[in-house]
């Protein structure tokens, strides 16, 4: 109990360290926010007229939840970059020599990245509304959809934590954190219906957890039956957190600054 209390305390001190500096590096936040908005506008206007999805009168209603989830997933890359940075600066040696909780450094990092991603998400949602996107289900459905997306993004932050601790430089973290997100988000149901893909790719897209999460959020935002997708995306997120938080904490306990 005492231990848990200190873990929470230390995690908060760590999260605060990162949150405190967000306003000092406002450029970073602005560009991190512009990127998803650009995607939103580009995809909606460039592909909007040419793609039609069965069951959706309006491609925007199909597409935008996909872009929401893609942006949240991309946002998780902050975690690998940030941890690699602490590692390259000698800060990790100091932190590991302190009588603090081992996992707090990573919890603090992922939580502060979550806050940052939430901010981006809210801005993106407002822009989507301006572009014509609407919740077709209940507000509760929309809230559930958002929660599932955010939780999945948080789970991927833990995957990113392992990457950030495994690579040897900030530059490497930058590439290693991003590169796999392209296949993850494009070989999925985010932009097109997987049934239009070649057979093998379709199988991959259908099995992709990102497809499951996107489908769940899309159905909920559009007031359509969600089936088991909501449960499965919850299972995926919790599973990823369980596995990767163990890996990341172990990795952290054994890493020294370069």
């Amino acid at each position, binding site marked *: 109990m005492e231990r848990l209390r200190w873990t929470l305390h*230390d995690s908060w001190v760590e999260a605060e360290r990162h949150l405190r500096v967000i306003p000092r590096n406002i450029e970073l936040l602005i560009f991190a926010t512009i990127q998803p908005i650009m995607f939103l506008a580009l995809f909606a206007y460039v592909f909007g007229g040419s793609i039609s999805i069965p069951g959706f009168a309006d491609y925007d209603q199909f597409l935008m939840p996909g872009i929401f989830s893609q942006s949240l997933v991309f946002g998780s890359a902050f975690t690998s970059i940030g941890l690699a940075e602490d590692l390259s600066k000698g800060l990790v040696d*100091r932190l590991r020599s302190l*009588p603090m909780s081992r996992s707090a450094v990573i919890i603090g990092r992922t939580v502060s990245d979550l806050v940052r991603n939430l901010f981006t998400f809210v801005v993106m949602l407002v822009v989507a509304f301006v572009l014509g996107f609407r919740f077709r289900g209940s507000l509760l459905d929309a809230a559930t959809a958002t929660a599932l997306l955010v939780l999945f993004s948080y789970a991927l932050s833990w995957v990113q934590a392992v990457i950030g601790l495994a690579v040897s430089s900030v530059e490497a973290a930058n590439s290693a954190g991003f590169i796999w997100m392209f296949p993850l988000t494009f070989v999925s149901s985010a932009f097109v219906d997987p049934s239009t893909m070649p057979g093998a790719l379709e199988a991959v897209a259908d099995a992709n957890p990102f497809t499951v999460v996107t489908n769940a959020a899309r159905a909920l935002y559009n007031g359509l039956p969600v089936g088991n997708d909501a449960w499965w995306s919850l299972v995926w997120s919790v599973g990823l957190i369980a596995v990767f938080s163990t890996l990341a904490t172990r990795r952290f306990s054994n890493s020294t600054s370069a």
Partner: protein
Amino acid sequence: MVAEYDRHTHWVTDFPAVEMTGVVKRFGETLALDGVDLSVPRGAVYGLLGPNGAGKTTSVRVLTTLIRPDSGTAKIDGIDVVADPDAVRRRIGLTGQYAAVDERLTARENLIYVGRLFHLGGAESKRRAGELLDRFDLADAADRVVKGFSGGMRRRLDIAMSLIANPSVLFLDEPTTGLDPRSRLQMWDVISDLAADGTTVLLTTQYLEEADRLAERIVVIDHGHVIAEGTPDELKSRTGGALLSVSIARAENRERAVSVLTPLCTGRVEHGDDDRSLVAPIVAGDRVVPGVIRALDAQGIDVLDVAVRRPSLDDVFLALTGHIATEEEAV
């Protein structure tokens, strides 16, 4: 068993502050530590001196719980670093080889941040931060973001951060490497003050002059082995005495000068930096200078300069290891 500590008075214990016994650490093929023994009494300032790759950082990392030794034991205040790392962490301060500050925060924020991670509480962390900022001459820069700090300011902040919880033992890994000469002198004052306050300090350095100046005892380490230990004076006397250097007026007389000097010296007479100078070991304290001048004069060799100097730690290192301690910058 565990030592009693009262933050405001002193440690009451018989344990050495730092103790390593037969510590071995291997990284793949590299034997970084090959049975290191070390004992630092409370309140002492010890220097761990060695060239690049000697095992200084690895020793510090074992003692500060960052890596586990493959064998042997390491203790802080009698507490084993492997068995009870958290108790060790509460007693130590670490200023690593690479500055461990958050550049995005101000100096004050960095200090308060570490204080809170030591569980001092917000108010106490703030109070300590203010104290340390004054003490380390950072009060004017306290509320500026660290990114713009000079190397010397960062190092001072780094040390201040290690002191926030009044550690029993402070580890300083190459505290002046990479600093300009002025900042280095300033850092030496900071460390001397710590020593005067009774903080136990184990500092590592590649600078022989630095160990000589700051440490009351020096442990010389090379290839993961402790090869010598003693006060700076003891180590100097290990080379067996003093060094004579002679400059003569004309280069063509040098070989004759060598034969004249050889019977007066305890070892080989070597050529010095230029073709008119010679160096040779002699017995310290002998009234050797007048004899040297007389002998050379008798052979008609004009002398420009004769000097006797105590060996530097460089000479000691050469005598102990057979090679010169490299002073290249650590990367």
